[in-house]
């Protein structure tokens, strides 16, 4: 029998690519270890638009990516219905844009297999009242929104249900090698301080932009191009249909409704690799996002902003494009044995949130080939945990015979069919997002939650209008009860509130500033932190 630290495959990186690869490998019967330095979905996986791309955005410039997007789009609607909101999207033409581009755009969409219908501007205004009333053209495409945190958590959960072991808050400190073969990894557990060694014939580098450093650790080079993208979150859904600009991809030209909020983005600037761990949004970026955003939906100019944040796209270097806008979003799967003569090491990178499943499939195919396993990928056909009962409305009808309460509906919106396993709880933890104590308890027990920030990613606790003002102390109490250390919970709460402030600071004016001040009274003056 294999030792407890021996696996078939080790996956480094708990973003969507790593979680998806862990699921695929585990479903194909491999013994899987997934290692994540922080929490799942902390990197680019959790720092994006949450756009369920139809592929239309890339249709003109990158047909391959566009085709991948629409195929995966249709798959995710089936397998991840509880993470997907089927909103559709508009590509609008403003008076300053070239309307001739529309014809080229529609033709490119259709050749990539993307449904694209030109609709009357009047009809567009009726369907989406928030859209800029000055539009001179609109094309409707099957865009949508996808919750990346939920998607990541569901993939991780399914991997675990298929026997995978998941280590979060555990950093790979060394790639263990013997000659030209990678044997495994050495890790440091950031919670316990414990150092361990893990072995597997195949190690997959799914570290996103940080895969650059992981590859270096293994002694190979993957030329990454870190492109920072900044985004703003507004306090409620201004739009219910995704709004894009019908022109060559540029800054701040996508507005996505996601859960209770909407998100405008992005910018694109090359940043040094060393800065990838600490992204800050500048006032210039905020200005640009607001100015350009208000062109999509004028109401954004007067809507309360909740946060500003930035992620780093894991683009793979191609040419001397200073912004990275022209680099393909295509998938890069490197078998380092073929490429560099390093056995047992695979890098899966490039791609996008949309194509994570396909990336996982490609990486798993290579791993299976190396391991001599002949099993086909089934991830495109098997619903993720939570998506078994279909969409939101169907799910609530199937779970509860009586009309569901608001928090039950909110739980079902987030967790899909898993809501049936969630205890009633004694009350609400997060009032803005209607997260019950039962849902928090479920997340703590099943979804690898070690801190308030982890909890936020699983449940939306602290993501609402008050940004933790009312819920952080309640949730900290529940975490303290689970791990039994009040001091650790207090420290966690301080870090959580500081992290919330980091996101509020670049946009701290008006109501947001009032809310911050009120939060400050509560935490500093009432609770005495």
């Amino acid at each position, binding site marked *: 029998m294999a030792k407890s630290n021996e696996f078939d495959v080790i996956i480094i990186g708990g973003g969507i690519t790593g979680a998806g690869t862990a699921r695929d490998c585990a479903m194909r019967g491999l013994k899987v270890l997934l290692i994540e330095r922080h929490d799942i979905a902390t990197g680019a996986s959790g720092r994006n638009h949450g756009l369920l791309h139809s592929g239309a955005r890339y249709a003109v410039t990158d047909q391959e990516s566009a085709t991948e997007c629409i195929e995966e789009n249709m798959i995710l609607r089936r397998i991840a219905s509880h993470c997907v909101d089927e909103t559709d999207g508009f590509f609008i033409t403003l008076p300053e844009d070239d309307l001739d581009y529309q014809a080229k755009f529609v033709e490119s969409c259709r050749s990539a297999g993307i449904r694209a219908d030109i609709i009357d501007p009047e009809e567009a205004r009726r369907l989406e009242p928030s859209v800029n009333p000055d539009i001179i053209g609109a094309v409707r495409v099957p865009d949508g929104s996808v919750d990346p945190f939920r998607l990541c958590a569901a993939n991780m959960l399914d991997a675990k249900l298929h026997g995978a072991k998941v280590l979060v808050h555990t950093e790979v400190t060394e790639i263990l090698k013997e000659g030209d073969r990678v044997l495994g990894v050495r890790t440091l557990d950031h919670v316990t301080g414990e150092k361990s060694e893990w072995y597997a014939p195949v190690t997959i580098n799914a570290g996103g932009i940080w895969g650059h450093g992981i590859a270096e650790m293994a002694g190979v080079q993957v030329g990454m191009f870190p492109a920072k993208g900044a985004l703003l979150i507004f306090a409620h*859904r201004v739009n219910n249909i995704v709004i894009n600009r019908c022109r060559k991809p540029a800054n701040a030209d996508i507005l996505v409704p996601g*859960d*209770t909020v909407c998100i405008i983005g992005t910018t694109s600037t090359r940043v040094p690799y060393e800065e990838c761990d600490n992204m800050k949004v500048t006032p210039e970026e905020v200005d640009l996002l607001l100015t350009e955003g208000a062109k999509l939906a004028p*109401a954004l100019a007067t809507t*309360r902003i909740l946060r500003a944040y930035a992620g780093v796209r894991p683009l793979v270097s191609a040419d001397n494009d200073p912004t990275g806008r022209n680099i393909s979003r295509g998938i890069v799967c490197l078998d380092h044995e073929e490429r560099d003569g390093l056995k047992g090491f695979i890098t899966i990178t490039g791609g996008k949130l949309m194509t994570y499943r396909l990336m996982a499939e490609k990486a798993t195919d290579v791993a299976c080939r190396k391991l001599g396993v002949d099993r086909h990928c089934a991830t495109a056909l098997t619903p993720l945990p939570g998506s078994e009962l279909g969409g*939101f409305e169907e799910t609530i009808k199937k779970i509860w015979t009586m009309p569901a309460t*608001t928090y039950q*509906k909110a739980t079902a919106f987030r967790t899909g069919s898993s809501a049936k396993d969630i205890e009633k709880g004694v009350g609400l933890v997060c009032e803005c997002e209607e997260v019950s104590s039962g849902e928090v308890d479920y997340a703590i027990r099943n979804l690898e939650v070690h801190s308030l920030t982890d909890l936020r990613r699983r449940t939306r606790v602290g993501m609402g*209008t008050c940004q933790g003002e009312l819920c952080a102390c309640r949730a900290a109490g529940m975490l303290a009860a689970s791990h039994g250390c009040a001091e650790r919970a207090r420290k966690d709460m301080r870090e959580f509130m500081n992290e919330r402030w980091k996101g509020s600071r670049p946009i701290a004016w008006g109501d947001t500033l009032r809310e911050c001040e*009120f939060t400050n009274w509560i935490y500093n003056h009432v609770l005495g932190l």
Partner: protein
Amino acid sequence: MTLQEITGSAHNFEECMKCTVCTAYCPVVPVNPRYPGPKQAGPDGERLRLKNPEFFDEALKYCLNCKRCEVVCPSGVNVADIIQEARIRYSQSKPKLRDKILASTDTMGSLARPFAPVVNGVLSLGVTKAMMDGVLAVDKHRTFPKYSSESFEGWFKRKAKAAQDAFKEKVAYFHGCYVNYNYPQLGKDFVKVMNALGIGVELLDKEKCCGVAMISNGMSKAAAKNAAINSGAISKVVEKGLRVLTTSSTCTFTMRDEYPELLHIDNAAWKNSLLLATRFIYEAVDSGRKKLIFKDSYKARIAYHTPCHLEKLGWGVFSTRLLKMIPGVEFTLLDSACCGIAGTYGFKKENYEASQAIGKALFEDIASVAPDVVACDCETCKWQIEMSTGYKVMNPVSILAEALDTELTAEANRS
């Protein structure tokens, strides 16, 4: 300029700071655990409803629309408007026959008036109450206000109209359904007081129920129809330079604030010309323009209850100051608390217990003061307090009519 004016958007709910003072002050929250409270039902719920209308919660019907949440909100959020708008926009439940009957004060009044003695007799029978309780779910503890055999409008035409021509100064009177069908005496008292002040009264060309009961029973379209008719009739007299006075705080509040906010009827042209009679009289006396001379013999211990909608208007002060002007009055201002009836709300069987639990503090307060009479500007508060405490409730205008020496007052205002 306030921060709200600078940052304010169409989405007033975003100004909520989550301080929760609205929920702390909501009279329903402590007595009905099924009601999520104004913060959850209002600004918090609105975000969820914008994400998916499935998040509309039928429990929003438990809101009294007393507007106390709006009075206490330090951020100026129109909490109750958000809740009522959500009910109008999303509620799937259609008004029941019972709700339609309760809400159609105008129609029921016109139907019942000619047969008033019979209708009143039948409505007060135990067996009728039991049947209405069982069949219509109108609580058996409630007694419908009695219908009058002659409407106020009828009386006015027959007895008062001609005399009004003698006055140079005029006001228009929006009497409301209660005065017209149930209690013309209040209207008569109003005319008496106005005439004593040297002011003639005219009625609107067309007057419909203000619509408050329709709004709260999910019949906003019917309410908007009435609102449009009233708005037209009021505009017409306001254009002539008249003010429109009322003797019901709820009709006043509905027409001033709910018409534009909930029914989207623009009333900017006449909003500030529509006043509760007590405010008009107080201001006229306070500025020295008019004089009030009271009977020496009038003595009463009066306890004043501020109706929720008057609290929201911020006009309770006019009624209380006016009553305090009466030399023979020993005045007590009751603690601000909702009586629990909220128009038709308390008539519904499912709300009876909550309604009485909400009013309990007020009833106890009244009992401890033990006044000769309770004064109040709202007719539904009057029914609730009379039924629940046994104390007599009078509109301040009726008290004035009783306490004024009309001849001396008329003389003082003639010169």
